[in-house]
């Protein structure tokens, strides 16, 4: 039982990293991309090749995975991001499948027994789950902070303008294509890093595990928590992984069919859209129009009742 909770923590972390990337693309910039499995795949393959074929360290494979996925994102992005939302969705779905096809053609059996990651002489072994939980959640924390900062910066502001209204954004001097591509490349790079983390944990890479299902799971994570809200996305990752391990947790592996979780994901997407399209937590209310400094925010957080009495105006 504890074992499964640890597994949930690990995979929730990996999916949280991926979902932070997807959130950058879908939540901030409003582009429905369906090839996160592809970026995940590139990250995993890059790690496997760097660590196994070249025998280099996991820490080198990390930036390589990010850059490789980002580059592919750039290559995909330049032709497809001019497309309207619906076309983009199909084009990226197709490209995700192509990435998987190519990966399968490069190495149909995948990679096994990839060397373990080490840090200051400590070896991250798969059976030591606690170490992985710490490692992966450290990454989640880092990306959460990086992307929170992004969301509150000029870049993030421009991305949100693009999401809200492309024509208006152009007339405000925002280079829509540039910000779409930046957002896509950033999201892709983070997807690659998630792939890297997964490989460090499982130490195997199989082309069969980067299906469309993974992309939908990531999308579901973002939609469930709340598009455009990084905290919500992490919550979404937990829920999605919890659902995924539900049969094992309840000990009903024989009763619950293998497709149950996918069915639930599909249902979640439909139900969320019908009942709560903004996600469980919704969007952050004050994003840019909040003049408070970080210290003031911190103070206001603890003085919340007093602020409410003033009518919530800042």
């Amino acid at each position: 039982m504890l074992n499964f909770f640890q597994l949930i923590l690990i995979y929730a972390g990996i999916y949280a990293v991926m979902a932070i990337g997807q959130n950058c693309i879908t939540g901030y910039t409003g582009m429905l991309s369906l090839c996160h499995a592809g970026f995940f795949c590139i990250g995993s393959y890059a790690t496997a090749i760097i660590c196994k074929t070249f025998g280099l360290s996991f820490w080198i494979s990390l930036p390589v995975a990010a850059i490789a996925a980002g580059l592919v994102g750039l290559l995909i992005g330049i032709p497809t991001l001019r497309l309207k939302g619906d076309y983009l969705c199909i084009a990226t779905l197709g490209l995700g499948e192509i990435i998987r096809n190519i990966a399968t053609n490069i190495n149909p059996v995948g990679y096994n027994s990839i060397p373990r990651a080490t840090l200051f002489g400590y070896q991250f072994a798969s059976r030591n789950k606690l170490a992985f939980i710490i490692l992966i959640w450290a990454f989640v924390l880092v990306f959460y902070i990086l992307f929170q900062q992004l969301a509150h910066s000029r870049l993030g502001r421009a991305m949100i303008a693009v999401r809200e209204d492309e024509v208006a954004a152009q007339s405000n001097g925002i280079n829509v294509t540039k910000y779409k591509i930046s957002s896509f490349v950033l999201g892709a790079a983070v997807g690659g890093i998630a792939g890297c983390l997964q490989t460090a944990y499982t130490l195997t890479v199989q082309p069969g595990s980067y299906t469309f299902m993974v992309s939908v799971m990531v999308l579901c994570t973002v939609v469930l928590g709340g598009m455009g809200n990084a905290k919500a996305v992490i919550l979404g990752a937990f829920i999605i992984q919890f659902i995924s391990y539900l049969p094992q947790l309840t000990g009903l592996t024989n009763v619950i069919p293998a497709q149950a979780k996918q069915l639930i994901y599909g249902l979640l997407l439909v139900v969320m859209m019908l009942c709560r399209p903004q996600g469980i937590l919704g969007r952050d209310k004050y994003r840019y129009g909040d003049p408070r400094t970080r210290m003031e925010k911190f103070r206001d957080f603890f003085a919340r009742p007093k602020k409410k009495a003033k009518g919530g105006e800042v």
Partner: protein
Amino acid sequence: MGTLTLYMQYIVNGLTLGAIYSLIALGYTMVYGILKFINFAHGDILMVGAFIGLIIYNALTGGEAADPSAWTLIAFFISMLISMASCAVLGMVIERIAYKPLRNANRLAPLLSAIGVSFILSNGAAWIFGTQSRRFPYPFENTPIHIGGISITPHQIVMVVVSVAMMLLLTFFVNKTRMGKAMRACSLDQSTSMLMGINVNRVISLTFAIGSALAAVGGMLAAFDFRVYPSMGTMTGLKAFVAAVIGGIGNIQGAMIGGILLGILEAVGAPLLHIPNGMRDTVAFAVLIIVLLVKPDGILGKNEREKV
């Protein structure tokens, strides 16, 4: 066999493949024409259609064991009709539950909902029928006919004949009947159509019904070539979508032309460029991206600009 006959053979294969793409592309195009939204679940409706057709056909004839006869052929058409009817109902129900409440929501909402529906259908089928693929037995003798070195199998002929018949029927329906006119009116301007006394909800329902019925036919015909399995709809559906885009999405004739064109491009292009079998799907997407970049409105599509 000479190179020329070899390529003639590829073209024939492409034509039959293209006929199916056209049939399925019609569903995408009709829905897009009216709702301006891509029905992501369309490919999975095709899969459901193939499964229903297979089950009924097997029930009527005893499946693989049955020798092709007049009865198997009749049974094939009976199962096709039943499959069409059930898919039409399925399409309408999906529209009512998952898309209709989202008609005025933001543009991502119906798309996400459609992805959800697609996931439910394909995984529901995997749950009920299992993930293994099944062969659709030929309801007729499938010995190839040779014409000048090119071999054509009867199942290819059936595919083309049925597809063309369906497309002619649809063209007649859209151009000549009252409901067809209402449909065209709705695709031009929904609110005006409503003011003219057209029941827009009924037209949309009907569009989904027709599109899904055509997908069922497409699914059953595709089953000869691709076998029947729960995820068969994803790739076939995607390629049909590409066909719809090539022809100009929202345009019925465009979907037909686009389908045939894509079928031929795929059948001829893959061997011509020495693309390995596992990468054949890449051709379709390469074509999609090129079309979207060069002529995003497709061959027959109208230039639709967002009004500023």
